[in-house]
C-alpha cells in the first residue's frame, strides 16, 4: 500500500507549489490513476514517490514505512516506466532489458517472451536507437516489468501508441495488478484511465480535486443523459434528454411509449466531462 499525506512540493525559484497538499492512498493490488493535463503535478508526484525528488512536506509511506527511511534496496521492489524513453541506443531491445538485470535480486522474466508480449519480438535484436517512438515506449514499459516489481509507476505508458497496442499494454497492466502489484498510472488519456484504474485522482494545478472510482466520479459529477435518434420528415435528428429533469423525463416516456425513434442510447458522462466540471478546463495537454 502507498499512502500520501499532505504532500507538498515547490520547485526552486517557482512562486507556486507544483504539488499542493495532496493526500491519497493506493491499495495493494490496485491501479490508481492520476489524471490531469500537462503541468498539473502528475510527474512531480511520481518523481517524489521514486525518490528522484525529495519529500519537502507531508509524508509518503510504502507498506507503512516512511519513504525517507528506505535505502536503495527499496528499488528492488520498484519498476518505473518513464514518459520519455531512456534507453541505450546502441544496445538491442534484448540488451536494454538485460542492462540493469544484475542489479535486482528477483528472478528476471524471460526478456524475449516479454518483448514478444509487447509486440517487439521481431525487433528484439535491433538497436533501440532505430526503434520508432511507440516501440521505444513499449520497450521502456517492458523494462519496468522485468524484475516483477511490487510497486509499478507508469508515466503515460500508452502515449503515442496505436489503439491495438494500447489494448496490449492495458492487458499487461491488468495482469500485473492481478499478480498483486500496486500501480500508479499517470496519464491524460481519460479512456485508458477509465478502463484501467480502480481509483482515479484528478489533479489540477498541483491540487487533488477528485478521488474516487471512475464510476463514482462520473455519477457524482456527471449528468445522466439519453440520446434519441429519430426521423422527422425523413431527416435524421438527434435529441439529448436529461432524465433528472422532469420535462425531459416526460418527453423520454412519450418517445419510448410511442416507439417513434430509431436508436436510444444512454449517454454517460466521461471523465473529461467530470474534469471540466470540477476545474473549468479540459484535460488536453
Amino acid at each position, binding site marked *: 500500500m502507498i499512502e500520501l499525506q499532505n504532500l507538498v512540493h515547490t520547485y526552486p525559484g517557482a512562486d507556486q507549489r507544483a504539488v499542493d497538499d495532496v493526500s491519497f492512498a493506493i491499495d495493494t493490488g490496485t491501479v490508481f490513476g492520476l489524471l490531469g493535463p500537462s503541468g498539473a503535478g502528475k510527474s512531480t508526484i511520481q*518523481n517524489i514517490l*521514486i*525518490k*528522484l*525528488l525529495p519529500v519537502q512536506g507531508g509524508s509518503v509511506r510504502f507498506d507503512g514505512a516512511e519513504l525517507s527511511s528506505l535505502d*536503495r*534496496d527499496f*528499488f*528492488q521492489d*520498484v519498476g*518505473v516506466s*518513464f514518459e*520519455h*524513453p*531512456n*534507453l*541505450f*541506443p*546502441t*544496445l538491442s531491445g534484448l*540488451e536494454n532489458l538485460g*542492462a*540493469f*538485470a*544484475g*542489479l*535486482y535480486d528477483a528472478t528476471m522474466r524471460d526478456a524475449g517472451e516479454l518483448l514478444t508480449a509487447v509486440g517487439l519480438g521481431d525487433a528484439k535484436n535491433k538497436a533501440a536507437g532505430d526503434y520508432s517512438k511507440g516501440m521505444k515506449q513499449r520497450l521502456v514499459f517492458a*523494462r519496468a516489468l522485468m524484475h516483477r516489481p511490487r510497486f509499478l509507476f507508469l508515466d503515460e505508458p500508452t502515449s503515442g501508441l496505436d489503439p491495438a497496442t494500447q489494448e496490449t499494454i492495458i492487458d499487461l497492466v491488468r495482469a500485473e495488478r492481478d499478480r498483486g502489484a500496486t500501480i500508479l498510472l499517470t496519464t491524460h488519456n481519460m479512456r485508458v484511465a477509465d478502463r484501467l484504474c480502480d481509483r482515479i485522482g484528478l489533479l489540477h494545478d498541483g491540487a487533488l480535486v477528485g478521488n474516487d472510482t471512475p464510476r463514482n466520479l462520473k455519477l457524482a459529477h456527471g449528468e445522466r443523459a439519453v440520446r434519441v435518434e429519430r426521423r422527422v420528415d425523413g431527416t435524421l435528428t438527434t435529441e439529448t434528454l436529461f432524465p433528472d429533469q422532469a420535462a425531459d423525463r416526460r418527453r423520454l416516456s412519450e418517445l419510448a411509449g410511442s416507439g417513434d425513434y430509431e436508436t436510444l442510447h444512454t449517454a454517460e458522462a466521461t471523465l473529461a466531462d467530470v474534469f471540466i466540471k470540477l476545474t473549468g478546463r479540459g484535460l488536453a495537454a
Partner: protein
Amino acid sequence: MRALRSQLRLDARTAYRGKFLHVTVGMALVFGLLIRFAVPAQIEGGGSELIQDAVGLKALNGAMTQLVSTEAELRGGLVENPDLVGVQFFGSVPTPRVRLLLQGHESEDLRGLSAATATRVWMEEGVTSRTGHVVELLGPQVPPAPLNETFLPLLYGLDTVILGFLFAGVMVLQEKAHGTVRFYRASPGSTSAYVASKVLVVTGIALVGAGVMTALVRPDALPNLRLLALLALATASLSLLGMGIAIFYDNLSRFFYPMAAAGIVLSLPMIRYGLPSAGLEWTRWIPTHGVMFGARELLLPAGRPELVTTSLGYLLAVFLTAAAAGTAIVHGRLMRRI
C-alpha cells in the same frame, strides 16, 4: 559486487558499441608505427644545458640558456632533471676552466658539442687556444636512449591518460543525454558501482591502447607491473576528473571547452620532457608528468629509480583524492539532481 559486475558488463558493451576501443587501438597503432618506423633512433643535435657561470662571461650575458649562480644550485638542478647537462665555468682568462657534469647517458656527440660550446664561450673573452675541460659523471655510464623510444612515455601521457579523461566525460554526457542515468537512479544500483565501473572500463580501454603502442615499440616492457601501475593510476585519476567535470555540462559541445583546457594543461609536462632547460618545475604536480618521467625511467633508465617510486606514490595520492571527490560529485550532482 554483483551490481558492479552488472554495471561493468553494461559499460563495457556501450563503450565498445560507441567505438571507444576501436579509436584507442587505431590511434595506438598509428603512434606505435610512427615511433617504430618513422622517428629515427638518433639525430644530430645538442642537449639542454644548465650553466653555472662563476666568471661573468660576456657570451652568456643575455644568452637563451638556463643559468644558475652557485654550484649547489647547479648540482641540485641536475639531480632534479636527469636530461640536463651541467657546464661549470670558472678560472680566468689566463687559466680558463670548464667542468662538464654529465648524467651518464649522453652520447659522445653531445659531450663533444658541449665542450666545443664551452671553448667558444671562453674565446669571446679573448682566450685563443682550445680550452681544456674535465668531465664529471653524476651517474653510471649507460647507452644513450634511442630518440624514437623517448616518444613512448610522452604518448603514454598525451594519449593514454588524456583518453581516460575524454572517454569518461563522454560516457557520462551520453548517459545524461539518453536519460539512462535517470533510470539508474530509480534502480538499486549504487553511486560507487556506477563510478567504479566507468573508471575500470575506461582505464581498461586506455591500457589496451598503451599495450598496443608498447608492443610495437618496446615489447620487452609489456610485463612491467610498475609501468602498468603508473598508467592505471594516472588514467583512472583522469577518468574520475573527466567524469566529475562532465557532470556539470549538458552536452558534448559545451564540454568541448573544459576538454580543450584540460588537454592543454595535461600536455604541459611535455615541454619539460622535450626541453629540460625550460624549467617549469611546477608541472610535476600535473599527473601526466609522473607518467612521462616515471615511464621513461622504467623504459630508458637514466639512473634515477626514485623517479618511479615518487611518481607512483604521487599518482596513488592523486587517485585516492580523485576517487573520493569524483564519487562525491557524482552522488551529489548526478544521482540527486533531476
